[in-house]
């Protein structure tokens, strides 16, 4: 199956009209940025023609290396060279210890928040390190495409929880990227493979990267990709294969487990090289200092068998959750560099009873799929209809209840977006605040689940204990991110909510990081803010104009239209000025004035869908 061209005969927008958007695969080991150009989705190379950017950052006192240079220096400077930072995103210090790896970094910060890594440039959070990688990719994209990006689709493992997703979004913000969508990696791969409009059926995506494993089961029907179930392990990947070999070397060579960080790195690099060599060879000679021995493929297979077994178990669970049988899967796709290991391919083939597909480079397929979706989300319309991706929440979402138990509110594999409500009441007279502890996971005890955040609800009107009826709504958006709102039903009062993430950065910390990075770049804060308000205003004006062109005549009467156009002109007049606050206010006003129009448009498309009309017909009038 060749990579499909998405050429659009008869529709070739001028380059300067095309809205620039990219897909970014922010991987544990390697990262890539890809874009759709002339109908083809492909990764963008650096100046040396390399598409892969190793996810490595080396901090010097006054500058940093990102990519190949950093990775090459890892064993020489292990404490300041950060590898596999993805494993630390959305995690706490206790998790980091539990990961079982010997991470050579010096961690600072002892609370449950994200652990900071001490470097010569000071403490760095995993979010900042990821942002440094994203900045390089963004620069590469803007240089290649010759313009400012409208936004990016950034991929995450399907099995990432809310904290891990939020951390990824925070990193993108720090890197100055507008996130169009957080897209699940297997779904992105499905997009890359499934572009052939004839592709129908049930597909399994087996995604084994450097540090994470995902299995997704999707149904493809007429341009709609529906995820039926997803599963995985965010602490299982090719890195673990390396560690298994490293362990074998240590045992065979009689090395003490007390190696210095530099030696640890070297050991892992040796192991990784051996693993890669065994893809094509039946045996390889492994050398470490003065010691050497032969590692056969059979011995290697035995070392990694337990890990492969874990991944297959997750596959069987996902199949069960989908409500299908193994035989119903019509294609299996391999994603991620670690699927090059022959034993992995054989094992997966055996489970599903068919040869896995590997046509698209497993290192690139995720970025390629993300770029296709980014192009659509940026607003570049496509003939022949667009793909629709219906994804699911990977882990059940619930609350802490009496006795340290987890009560599920939204079960895993529920299609997103989703909103569920639960009602609570007060237990003391006059109680005006309430705390809700939200977790993710499948187990019964909260100690076995991931704590996401504590939500403090304030402003509950004073009442007798038990009289208040507080409806709390849990909403998960298309990125898989949770937001909580609460209202006291009797009075209609909307509670104010303060979020305290368990493993994330608070809004204050992010604001501080943003400020630091602007100051570092020598930007004038006021100028930057003004520019942001102007960009927001521009976006809204464009959107409203588009809506008016499409449906203004049909859905608005003359007065309503005039009112909207008046507010638009007010905004345009302000935009050429320098009063950022006024621009922001007028943007809000315009947004309010178009609220009813937006609702009417939505109703109209829904009606049309039911009537079975082609939506393109309506939009083109």
């Amino acid at each position, binding site marked *: 199956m060749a990579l499909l061209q998405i050429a659009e005969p008869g529709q070739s927008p001028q380059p300067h009209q095309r*809205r620039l958007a990219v897909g970014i695969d922010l991987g544990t080991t390697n990262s890539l940025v890809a874009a759709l150009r002339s109908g083809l989705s492909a990764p963008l190379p650096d100046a040396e023609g390399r598409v892969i950017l190793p996810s490595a950052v080396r901090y010097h006192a006054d500058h940093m290396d990102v990519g190949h240079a950093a990775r090459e220096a890892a064993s020489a400077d292990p404490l300041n060279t950060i590898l596999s930072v993805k494993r630390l995103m959305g995690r706490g210090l206790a998790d980091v210890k539990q990961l079982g790896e010997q991470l050579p970094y010096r961690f600072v910060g002892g609370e449950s928040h994200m652990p900071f890594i001490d470097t010569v440039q000071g403490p760095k959070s995993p979010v900042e390190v990821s942002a440094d990688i994203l900045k390089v990719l963004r620069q590469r994209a803007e240089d290649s495409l010759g313009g400012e990006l409208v936004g990016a689709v950034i991929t995450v493992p399907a099995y990432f929880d809310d904290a891990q997703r939020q951390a990824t979004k925070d990193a993108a913000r720090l890197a100055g990227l507008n996130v*169009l*969508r957080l897209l699940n990696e297997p779904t992105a791969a499905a997009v890359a493979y499934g572009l052939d409009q004839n592709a129908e059926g049930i597909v399994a995506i087996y995604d084994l990267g450097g540090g994470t494993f995902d299995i997704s089961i999707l149904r493809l*029907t*007429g341009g*709609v990709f*529906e995820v039926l179930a997803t599963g995985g392990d965010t602490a299982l990947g090719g890195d673990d294969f390396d560690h298994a070999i490293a362990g074998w070397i240590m045992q065979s060579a009689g090395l003490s487990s007390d190696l210095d960080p530099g030696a640890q790195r070297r050991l892992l690099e040796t192991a990784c090289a051996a693993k890669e060599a065994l893809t094509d060879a039946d045996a390889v000679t492994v050398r470490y200092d003065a010691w050497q021995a032969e590692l056969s493929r059979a011995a290697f297979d035995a070392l990694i068998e337990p890990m492969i077994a874990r991944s297959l*178990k997750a596959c*069987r*669970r996902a199949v*069960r*959750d989908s409500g299908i049988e193994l035989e119903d899967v019509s294609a299996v796709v391999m994603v991620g560099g670690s699927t090059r290991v022959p034993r992995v391919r054989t094992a997966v083939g055996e489970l599903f009873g068919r040869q896995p597909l590997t046509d698209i480079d497993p290192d690139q397929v995720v970025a390629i799929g993300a770029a296709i979706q980014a192009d*659509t*989300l*940026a*607003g570049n319309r496509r003939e022949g209809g*667009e793909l*629709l*991706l*219906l994804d699911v929440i990977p882990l059940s979402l619930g609350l802490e209840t009496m006795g340290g138990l987890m009560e599920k509110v939204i079960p895993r594999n*529920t*299609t*997103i*977006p*989703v*909103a569920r409500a639960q009602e609570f009441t007060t237990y003391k007279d006059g109680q005006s605040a309430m705390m809700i502890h939200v977790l993710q996971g499948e187990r019964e005890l909260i100690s076995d689940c991931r704590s996401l955040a504590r939500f403090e609800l304030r402003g509950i009107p004073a009442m007798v204990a038990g009289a208040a009826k507080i409806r709390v709504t849990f*909403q998960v*958006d*298309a990125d898989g991110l949770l937001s909580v709102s609460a209202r006291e039903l009797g009075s209609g009062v909307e509670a104010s909510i303060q979020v305290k993430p368990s493993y994330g950065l608070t809004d204050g910390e992010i604001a501080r990081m943003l400020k630091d990075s602007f100051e570092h770049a020598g930007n004038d804060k006021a100028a930057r803010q003004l520019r942001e308000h102007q960009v927001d205003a521009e*976006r*809204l004006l*464009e*959107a*409203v104009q*588009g*809506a008016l062109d499409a449906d203004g005549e049909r859905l608005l009467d003359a007065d309503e239209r005039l009112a909207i156009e008046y507010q638009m002109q007010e905004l345009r007049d302000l935009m050429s000025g320098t009063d950022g606050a006024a621009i922001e206010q007028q943007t809000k006003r315009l*947004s*309010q004035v*178009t*609220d009813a129009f*937006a*609702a009417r*448009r*939505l109703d109209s*498309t*829904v009606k*049309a*869908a*039911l009537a*079975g009309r082609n*939506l393109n017909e309506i939009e083109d009038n």
Partner: protein
Amino acid sequence: MGTPCHFALFDLQPDFRLDLDQLATRYRELARAVHPDRFADASEREQRLALERSAGLNEAYQTLKSAPRRARYLLAISGHEVPQEVTVHDPEFLFQQMQWREELEDLQDSADLDGVAAFKRRLKVAQEALNEEFAACWNDAAQRDQAERLMRRMQFLDKLAYEVRQLEERLDD
């Protein structure tokens, strides 16, 4: 804010018998219309509206797709809101419930995979039989109590099916 009846959302008449394929097709068409991805370049308000509508659509779809949930919903919109957790007198079924549960426990202890497969098949047959019975009586006001009873039995078997999946997972090692 009045929400449209789930059936109306899919342009269907409220009924227990449902063409699931047709429902799925309509769901996909509607999802296309309201999914937030369609509004990625629209105003924030439109995006938020789309998010709410999508969530509502998904909820309606999940309700209609599942026979027990559809049954419960039908009774609710016919004016017979059935409270969630209530001890009901259904002695005949109580006995069957105990039998099902005991069998499931035995299967767990014996780790009998073939037995589990057979159990699943019988469970499916039982569920289909209940569906038929419910379809025949839900719309008849005179048989309201029976309809409720059947709906609770459907819920029980649905929960049992979930427990079988959990058992399969535990046995998968």
